[in-house]
């Protein structure tokens, strides 16, 4: 049971990451693979404030989210000038630079040593040291992010994002300063990713740079392609399926050396087959 709870927490975290990335990729058509970078900023800022200053969890998390949002705001001013595949490579660069900073700014991040013993939050007498109660927090966060995601999709703002996704120039002719819209959604996506990062740091209670690599970004990206771009439900379903698939390999009886590679093999194949036979993903509303 505890193990199912553990997996459920992971599903919630990746669900938040999937939803937030979907806003950027699925709704706005910005193919970004920098998400693990923002996820990491949220995790590091929260963890450092908790460990270093003993700050209240929610305050630390809020600051982590704001920090990630500020970084996104600054950076997207630069990279939102890139189009299409160049945007993609810009974001790959971003992720690698963020990772280098986590690894090399050792006076702050402790580099490869990581940050151990991050306290779990305790609120209203709930002892979140219990995984089940942490799951409530994670699930509540997922629900909030889902709500935010649907709220954005249903707003006029969301419609403009869809319009940018398909024809940015035409959208400008309608009178929209599209660069501000891209800036805004990139920042919102980064802030929500940072929320997942804050939860991750306090859940695992240890972070190091290896959780925030470009491969992690590619994994998050794959989950939403599987679930279906442009769909909030798809952005939760994709992570759910892939996390279950990954954990399932633990039980499938493969030799361990092979199992890890089998996961990679499975999701690589999933991407190829999806593109060949169902580029919309499972639930997608948007065919890239």
């Amino acid at each position, binding site marked *: *049971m*505890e*193990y*199912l*709870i*553990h997996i459920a927490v992971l599903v919630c975290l990746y669900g938040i990451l999937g939803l937030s990335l979907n806003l950027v990729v699925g709704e706005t058509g910005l193919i970004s693979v920098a998400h693990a970078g923002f996820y990491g900023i949220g995790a590091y800022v929260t963890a450092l404030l908790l460990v270093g200053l003993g700050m209240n969890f929610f305050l630390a998390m809020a600051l982590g989210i704001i920090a990630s949002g500020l970084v996104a705001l600054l950076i997207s001013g630069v990279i939102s000038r890139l189009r299409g595949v160049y945007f993609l490579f810009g974001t790959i660069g971003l992720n690698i630079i963020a990772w*280098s900073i986590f*690894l*090399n700014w*050792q006076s702050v991040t402790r*580099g*490869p*040593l*990581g940050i*151990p*013993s991050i306290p779990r939050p305790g609120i209203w007498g709930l002892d979140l*040291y219990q*995984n089940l109660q942490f799951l409530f927090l994670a699930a509540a966060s997922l629900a909030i992010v889902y709500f935010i995601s*649907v709220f954005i*999709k*249903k707003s006029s703002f*969301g*419609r403009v994002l869809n319009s940018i996704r398909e024809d940015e120039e035409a959208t400008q002719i309608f009178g929209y300063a599209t660069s501000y819209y891209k800036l805004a959604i990139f920042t919102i996506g980064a802030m929500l990713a940072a929320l997942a990062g804050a939860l991750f740091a306090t859940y*695992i*209670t*240890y*972070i*190091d740079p*290896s*959780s925030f690599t470009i491969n992690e970004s590619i994994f998050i990206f794959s989950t939403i392609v599987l679930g279906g771009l442009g*769909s*909030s*439900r798809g952005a939760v*379903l994709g992570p*759910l*399926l892939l996390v*279950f698939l990954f*954990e*399932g390999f*633990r*039980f*499938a009886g493969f030799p*361990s*050396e092979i*199992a*890890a*590679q089998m996961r990679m093999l499975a999701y690589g194949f999933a991407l190829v087959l999806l593109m060949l036979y169902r580029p*919309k993903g*499972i*639930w997608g*509303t948007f065919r890239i």
Partner: protein
Amino acid sequence: MERVNRGSALMWVIVALVVVVGGFSILGGKGGAPSTETGPIKIGVIGPLTGDAAIYGEPFRNTVQLAIDEINATGGIGGRQVEAIYEDGQCNGKEGANAAQKLVNVDKVQAIIGGVCSGETLTVVPIAEKGRVVVVSPSASSPALTGISPYFFRPYPSDASQGNVLANIAYTDKGWKKVAVIQEQVDYAVGLYKVFNQVFSGLGGKTVKEEFSSNVTDFRSVLTKLKAEKPDALFVLTQTAASTQRILKQMEELNWKPQIILDEASAGDKETLTTYKSQLEGALTSEFIPDLSNAKLQKLMSDYKAKYGTELPYLGYMAPAYDIVYILKDGIASVGYNGEKLATWSRTIKDWQGASGSVTISSDGDRVGGYSSEVVHDGKTEPYKK
């Protein structure tokens, strides 16, 4: 905005199926789990079964399995068979945490052997502590693990000891004033460098350090830069022998043949020592070395060779790994298979005789005793003599 497409009913069915199948496989895995009172004794094992550090993970798993097979062949513990559940920690914190969650919560083990690296061990311990499971590492040597939890102990000394030995000999005996360090960005190397630098600078020496992340393959410019510093010696400080080999190969290509200091992770790798024999001749190193004349160790080495067909590598890590299984056996025999009781019992271990020699666990969970210095000669390590 979000309209349901026609395929969605089908997709729901698929989702439901996956959830059901996933649930079944998990419950299936759980259903067979017996209570802790009867049936086989399940012990969790976490190590790097994949990735760069798998070179330690494989012999580690083999050694643990060897000890378990021996115990089972002689009637198990109190009549109960021992069964190991291996999980892949990949020497990384997150995977270590996942593996520990599964072992503690699904398999309900009371003891975990591992992790092999400090990185995974650091995340395993808090999870195990919460589940009141005892964790024993054969080789995680980070000073950060000293006194981390009453549920953790290691029949292996902390790196503090290794850094100390190396820095003292380098400065005092060898008379090196300036040592260049090429350090991999992993917790083990960072921890060791800290101790080394502290002691070496304290003595009056100076270090010049370059770092590299584990995925780097081209060291030439970093090495060129260190060479230009004209150091008295180069400390190759890596977590895996693979990186050391890359560095040594590229040093050779650059025609740089300095005095070398090796950490134990590379010094324990026979392939490195023999392949780069001429470059490493006279290299200073320090290992936690079990006494080769120890009859238990000799038996372990010959049994290992008989069973797996290869020489037992990394004696400094594998002898403790082998001993852990027997230590746990003694512990379970005296206090029962219960993490809490085993944790308390672990602090009473004193002069326990095993393949790695005499084991005494201090109150902070570390092995008492330490590293001895060695030099490389003709592709082998031998004790250092002044």
